[in-house]
């Protein structure tokens, strides 16, 4: 069992609480039938991927070492904002409805857009000079 840093845990809790509130609020505001494109989940996942790529690259390669920014913004906010389990259950329900094209399209689009978001955010941070 690794040693637990209380302030690190507190940072993850705060970031995760905020990310979850945003994701849950969006999901409640835009309900969709099982065979429609799950825009709320798709949007939070791609946005969270972009933000995570931006935050982590910047914190690791551009900014002075900080103990609590990554847990707050990365593990907490982006982790809480994005979700894997909801995406899998959405795919399962598409398969139930024999909406194979939608299931495959949604899975593929999420992975391609999520990966591209991380890649672009990383490239963007590395291209911009450090401004202090």
């Amino acid at each position: 069992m690794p040693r637990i840093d209380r302030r690190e845990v507190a940072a993850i809790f705060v970031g995760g609480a905020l990310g979850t509130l945003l994701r849950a609020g969006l999901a409640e505001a835009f309900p969709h039938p099982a065979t429609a494109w799950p825009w709320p989940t798709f949007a939070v996942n791609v946005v969270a991927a972009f933000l995570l790529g931006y935050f982590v690259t910047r914190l690791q390669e551009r900014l002075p070492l900080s103990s609590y920014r990554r847990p707050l913004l990365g593990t907490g906010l982006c982790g809480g904002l994005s979700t894997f389990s909801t995406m899998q259950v959405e795919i399962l329900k598409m398969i139930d409805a024999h909406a194979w094209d939608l299931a495959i399209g949604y899975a593929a689009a999420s992975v391609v857009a999520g990966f591209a978001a991380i890649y672009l955010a990383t490239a963007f941070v590395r291209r911009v000079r450090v401004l202090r």
Partner: protein
Amino acid sequence: MTMLLWAGVILIGGAGSVVRFVADGMVASAVGRDFPFGTLAVNVSGAVILGLLTGLALGHDQALLAGTAAVGSYTTFSTWMFETDRLAEERQYRKAAANVIVSLVLGVAAAALGRLIGVHL
């Protein structure tokens, strides 16, 4: 009641994120960090639980708290993609591809298994 419900979403979301951090760290320190097993374990176990909750056919508020808030914050899409990108960056293309395919296949299978259990509970 609505205020209380959203306060629950916030608190449970924070807690789910902390549980993910601890579980990821425990799995990674147990089996090594050559492959992102920690995130895989968190995501697949979360898919089983959310599948199970789906099978239980909970009411709206319970589903929001236990499913969207708790399991939703416990699992992560962003870290999964981040680790895939960093594997590709290190030219470990097979591991990067395996991370995507294994997560998706196990994730949907786990959700189906969980739901099967939930329906029979």
